[in-house]
């Protein structure tokens, strides 16, 4: 099992001027590990990160979009996999941090926990590539090459919580967060 923050620390080394769309605990972890203005944190409604990412990918074709989704979020918007597969943006990379629970809502199990194969669903929905990783070493050895492939790509990471990072809900829903992103995008 991969410690979530260890995967994010690995990704920090590979993220340059990319847009990162992140949700819930993965977002809070990422904000602590790699605070930057091109982090898109205001996804508004649970489950919508992938759809925000699609909009950003289509409107900013010269940039790479990394979505840091959760399994609890994605199962609320599974249809977005089909929409993304159909539109097939080459600049769209979709990470799903699979921990099997709604972590910020009491850690209740996600439907299909332990059985759903997100990589298979993505592939069947039209994603160009999809992968599943359970060991950090395998992920670390492969992710550089994966990020050089044209998307859309889905990478399911079987994770457990790492270090406990603070949950700053006020920031992710703030106009400050949105304005920082807007200004960074337009600069």
């Amino acid at each position, binding site marked *: 099992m991969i410690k979530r923050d260890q995967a994010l620390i690995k990704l920090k080394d590979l993220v340059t001027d990319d847009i990162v769309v992140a949700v819930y605990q993965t977002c809070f972890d990422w904000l602590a590990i790699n605070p930057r203005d091109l982090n*898109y944190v*205001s*996804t*508004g*409604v649970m489950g*919508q990160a992938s*759809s*925000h*990412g*699609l*909009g*950003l990918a*289509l*409107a*900013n074709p010269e940039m790479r979009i990394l979505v840091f989704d959760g399994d609890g979020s994605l199962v609320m*918007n599974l*249809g*977005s996999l*089909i*929409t993304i597969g*159909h*539109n097939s943006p080459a600049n769209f990379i979709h990470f799903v941090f699979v921990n099997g629970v709604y972590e910020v809502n009491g850690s209740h199990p996600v439907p299909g926990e332990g059985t759903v194969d997100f990589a298979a669903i993505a592939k069947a929905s039209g994603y160009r590539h999809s992968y599943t990783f359970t060991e950090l070493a395998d992920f670390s050895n492969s992710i550089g090459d994966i990020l050089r492939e044209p998307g859309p790509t889905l990478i399911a990471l079987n994770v457990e919580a790492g270090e406990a990072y603070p949950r700053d809900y006020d920031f992710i*829903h703030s*106009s400050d967060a*949105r304005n920082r*992103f*807007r200004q960074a*995008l*337009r600069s």
Partner: protein
Amino acid sequence: MSTNISYPSGGAIIRQIKQAGVRFVASVPDIVTSDGLLWPLSKEADIQLIRVCKEDEGLSVCAAMSYNNTRALMLMQQTGLMDSLNAVRALGMDYELPLCMMVGLQGKEPHLPASESKAYGVRIVQPVLDAMGISHSIIDQPEDVDTISSNINRAYEQSAPHCFLIGRSPTYP
């Protein structure tokens, strides 16, 4: 009675959308706007149609596009609007993003205003939008179409949502 009813032009709606600089339309099909608007839009070279599985997806796509000022419109039925009100609330009102929506009022009688429709699902649309503080305008008559471009411009200038309610099936062209 029906012989005196005039209908908005889908071609004119598309011209207004293009005049406002809209480059993307996200949509879930709606029978009110299908023949006169959505099918013609799907053939427009200057507008990219994004067929989404569900309305809240489309709203998120449109909202995210606004950050670099790319203009987009969500085309749907009022049933889809009702289904996605939480996304409208979060993106349009809490986040103050320029969410532009065009909504076919399925079940609305052409000769009646929405407020007098026999269809509960139609009657409640404007009161719900009013309760949420979302500006809206009716597109029933051909001349109603003339306001579309300016309302889209205003939405983006003020970074606020606007909802067009299509009360009569557009003709094409």
